[in-house]
């Protein structure tokens, strides 16, 4: 059967390579071996498709599955896990209690890191010293959480990366970038040795390595654009 009109791929991602939220979705899809197309948005100019697909927030990432839009990165990751549940590995842990713990920390991470990173990048006004303290405390707590959840294995998810690995790991690019931009130490091997080792392993993981660029590329991006959407006034909270 031949068709003169090409069908859109079943799975498409609207995104920007530098967004940690988009990176989460790409990692999840790669982890599950799901074929997908990435539509890179133009910085500062939202596409018609994006505005139509996420009219409420007008934000990336958006996953389009057979044309149906799903928004919000962690919601998308859970969706991917549930739809492709027969593809290993499982992203969310099987045990409801461990799930609850991972969801708790994922929420905590998104409460602290995006805003903190924006302040350290200089996109938004704020007390940098205070932020460094807050993020260091957060990393300390996450170091302890890592020890409990990993149970001696390589990732928060155990033998393979999972929900919490993706939630935190997606921020590593910008964390390392702001360390250079602001001249601060966050992923300090002296203070959070297990997280530092985990971060290296995470970044080298086959599902991650091609979608989480080096810190220098994020620094370049920051110099070039200042923020993701420079035409939109920067808000202190997401």
């Amino acid at each position, binding site marked *: 059967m031949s068709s003169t009109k090409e069908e859109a791929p079943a799975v498409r991602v609207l995104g920007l390579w530098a967004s940690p939220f988009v990176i989460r979705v790409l990692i999840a899809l790669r982890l599950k071996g799901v074929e997908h197309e990435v539509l890179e948005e133009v910085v500062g100019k939202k596409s018609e498709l994006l505005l139509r697909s996420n009219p*409420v927030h007008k934000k990336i990432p958006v996953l389009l*599955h057979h044309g*149906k839009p*799903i*928004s*919000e990165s962690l*919601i*998308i990751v*859970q*969706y991917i896990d*549930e*739809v492709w549940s027969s593809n290993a590995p499982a992203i969310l842990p099987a045990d*409801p*209690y461990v*799930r*609850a*713990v991972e*969801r*708790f920390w994922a*929420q*905590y991470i998104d409460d602290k890191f995006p805003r903190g990173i924006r302040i350290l990048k200089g996109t938004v006004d704020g007390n940098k010293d205070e932020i460094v303290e807050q993020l260091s405390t957060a990393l300390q*707590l996450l170091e302890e959480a890592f020890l409990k959840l990993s149970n001696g294995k390589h990732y928060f998810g155990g033998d393979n990366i999972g929900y919490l690995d993706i939630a935190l790991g997606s921020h590593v690019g910008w964390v390392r970038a702001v360390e250079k931009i602001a001249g601060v130490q966050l992923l300090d091997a002296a203070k959070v040795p297990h997280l530092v080792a985990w971060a290296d392993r995470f970044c080298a993981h086959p599902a991650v390595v091609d979608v989480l660029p080096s810190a220098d590329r994020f620094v370049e991006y920051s110099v070039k654009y200042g923020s993701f959407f420079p035409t939109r006034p920067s808000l202190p*909270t*997401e």
Partner: protein
Amino acid sequence: MAGAEDLKLLGMWASPFVLRAKLALSLKGLNYEYVEEDLKNKSELLLKSNPVHNKVPVLIHNGKPVCESTVIVQYIDEAFAGTGLSLLPSDPYERALARFWAAYIDDKLLPSWTKTSRGSTEEERAEGKEQSAVAVENLEGALRECSKGKPFFGGDNPGYVDVILGGLLGWVRASEELYGINPFDPAKTPLLAAWAERFGALEAVDPVIPEVNKLVEVAKMMQAKLAAEAAGASN
């Protein structure tokens, strides 16, 4: 009965977040021990169970604590999957939609209400009012989309979004007396207004919602306290 579940909820009677947990437990027909916390004098158990935030609600199941209201509600649904109603839908796309709107309530709706009532400047409060109008309009659309003509966000039966929004019902009711505003104005958001009545009247819900006059009393006390502090500060 062997292996009886040990469920304890640490809460504060006026908290909408605690109410969410109570609603989920009630809708699933689960028995639990409720512990009222004095937030000015938090118990050892609370501090130990939620060391990161020291906040309520905390659900303790067989000695293991779960924190954050949306996490707790999902936990209740998953840990007790065979019991009572299913709060999250079974279809992955509908689940994603339910999670999206639950997040919207906390990320957009609630902050806009807080800004409207507690914004420090007239400008801020006006901005809050504008944002609230957009937020409830979006939620009205969400209810239309999710319910598909049925009584609840969850369809025939209340579900996740009903619980997350339902936690706010006490304060929604109190809002009219306190601020002369009905956040779910039947003229502007008829579906939400009808939903609020319907959800609030459910057998599993009605007894659990805090009394409006008590909420009003607590809010007025807070307002008086803040006013006194402001007056004292300007002297």
